[in-house]
């Protein structure tokens, strides 16, 4: 029965690994259960349609109203718009890094982009607060000069949040896209060039389509990052619950929780958990999409 000592160490290590893995699974399960348990009572107390489709957010009024549709829309539109702005820039940057720039230039740009990813979101928020918001206010004054109905926000608006988010998702999308473009087989490029396509034609007609699933993964990760960002938006978006128009002060799902959890109580508090649940569901959808893209890619390979 005496087995070599090594095996005992091996099996002990196996259990340690299993326990570590269990911690992660336990965390996911307990968070999911907790969010559902805490997030659903408000549906019963307020009413599903009133909560999800109500436009009025007055949680502390004598007759409170808990409509979060503007908050959901702000998050969805804000994320969508930052993807529209951020992804083309990120994709072209990735192309530049992999296809256009010489090695020396790429070795400068690549670390710079990685550095961008390492900057904490509060720094983005701070810069937005000090630089973007005042500039936005000047723009706002120009556009709405003499307007009687516009509520001046001092530059803290949807547009500021979108611009900050667009910059924040850049590194994620650039890095993932660049590595998938690099993974495209040299033969494909060579074949395209041999058929007489120019370099630019090759990039847009051959390389990018071939790297499509990798780029989509980058975009999905970018959406996840934008949707989950709270700190930077909290600092630049103004924080009043409004229709998500570019020059309106808005509140996102994340900032809604951040800014009101401190003093909320009763139904107000429950609704904040529901906001968390909505955010959680959105993030889950994005992640499932991501896994599907990844599976599709594995199949293709």
């Amino acid at each position, binding site marked *: 029965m005496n087995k070599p000592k090594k095996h005992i160490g091996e099996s*002990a290590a196996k259990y340690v690994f299993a326990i570590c893995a269990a911690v992660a699974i336990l965390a996911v399960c307990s968070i999911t259960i907790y969010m559902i348990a805490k997030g659903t009572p408000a549906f019963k107390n307020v009413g599903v349609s009133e909560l999800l489709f109500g436009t009025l*957010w007055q949680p*502390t009024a004598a007759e409170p109203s808990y409509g979060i549709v503007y908050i959901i829309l702000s998050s969805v539109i804000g994320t969508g718009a930052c993807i529209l702005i951020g992804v083309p820039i990120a994709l072209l940057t990735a192309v530049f890094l992999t296809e256009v720039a010489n090695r020396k230039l790429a070795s400068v740009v690549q670390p710079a982009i990685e550095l961008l990813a390492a900057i904490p979101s509060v720094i983005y928020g701070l810069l937005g607060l000090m630089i973007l*918001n005042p500039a936005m206010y000047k723009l706002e004054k120009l556009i709405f000069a003499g307007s009687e109905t516009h509520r001046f926000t001092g530059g803290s608006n949807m547009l500021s949040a979108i611009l900050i988010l667009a910059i924040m998702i850049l590194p994620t999308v650039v890095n993932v896209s660049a590595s998938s473009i690099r993974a495209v087989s040299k033969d494909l490029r060579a074949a395209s060039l041999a058929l007489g396509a120019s370099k630019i034609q090759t990039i847009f007609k051959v390389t990018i389509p071939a790297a499509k699933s990798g780029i989509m993964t980058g975009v999905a990760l970018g959406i996840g990052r934008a949707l989950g960002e709270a700190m930077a938006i909290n600092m630049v978006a103004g924080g009043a619950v409004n229709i998500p128009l570019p020059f309106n002060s808005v509140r996102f799902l994340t900032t809604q929780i951040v800014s009101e959890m401190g003093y909320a109580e009763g139904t107000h508090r429950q609704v904040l958990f529901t906001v968390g649940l909505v955010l959680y569901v959105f993030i889950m959808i994005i992640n499932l999409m991501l896994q599907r893209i990844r599976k599709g890619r594995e199949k293709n390979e």
Partner: protein
Amino acid sequence: MKRFIMKAVAVGMAVLMTAGIATGCGSATEEGKTEETTKLSGKISLAGSTSMEKLCEAMSESFMEAYPDVTVTTEYTGSSAGIESLTQGSIDIGNASRELKDGEKEKGVTENVVAIDGIAVITDKENATKDLTTEQLAAIYTGEISNWKELGGNDEAIVVIGREAGSGTRSAFEELLKIEDACQYAQELDSTGAVLAKVASTPGAIGYVSLDVVDDTVNAVSLNGVPALEESILAGKYLLSRPFVMATMGEVSEQNELVKTWFEFISSDEGKSIISDLGLILPQ
């Protein structure tokens, strides 16, 4: 056999470790702070104003640290409900964030002002408007006035900054101006510091903060000609202030030992420092 033992040991260790992680937080015990002289034990019950939550929590926490055998419970039911419970005799102290009404005093309720909450209205340094009437202030916050020139100031849009729903400062401000839930905020920020910084850096901005945090990065506007100063609040002239009352049935001296000690604690140096740490003004 040896392998089995090792396996069991490994699993046991891992379980212990996980349990250690689970219990590791929140078990920091603080000992050696019990005072010999405090034999007081029992229960003090408070109920009333939601705005006084921070004050009550801070006060009862320190109080229970000094008198470990005493339990202080507070319910936040609203000022009127708190006084109502007091007159019915179900609690010891009724909290109200307003002056007592004559009807309440007639029932024998005594008004003990423990602190005063003051709110300053602030504008950016460049703003020429230094005085507002309460009507003008209400009109600004409800969106009827949207440019400083309508108030005789510069031609500059008014950026209306306030606090998030649930903030005590916000509810006090709106309540005192009687514009509850009628405010049209351009920005809702979640801390006093953020309001202060935003107002200081935004031309044409107006905001409200606790009186004690006002510094020279902003202008504190005077209301109806009364400057936003502690003196004017203590003199009862400044509108944006309200007393925090801990009402008792009859005078404090007629109360039981526990309640008397509670009020002694509030007026002690420690109690006073809790009140001023919360940005409240001590009554004179």
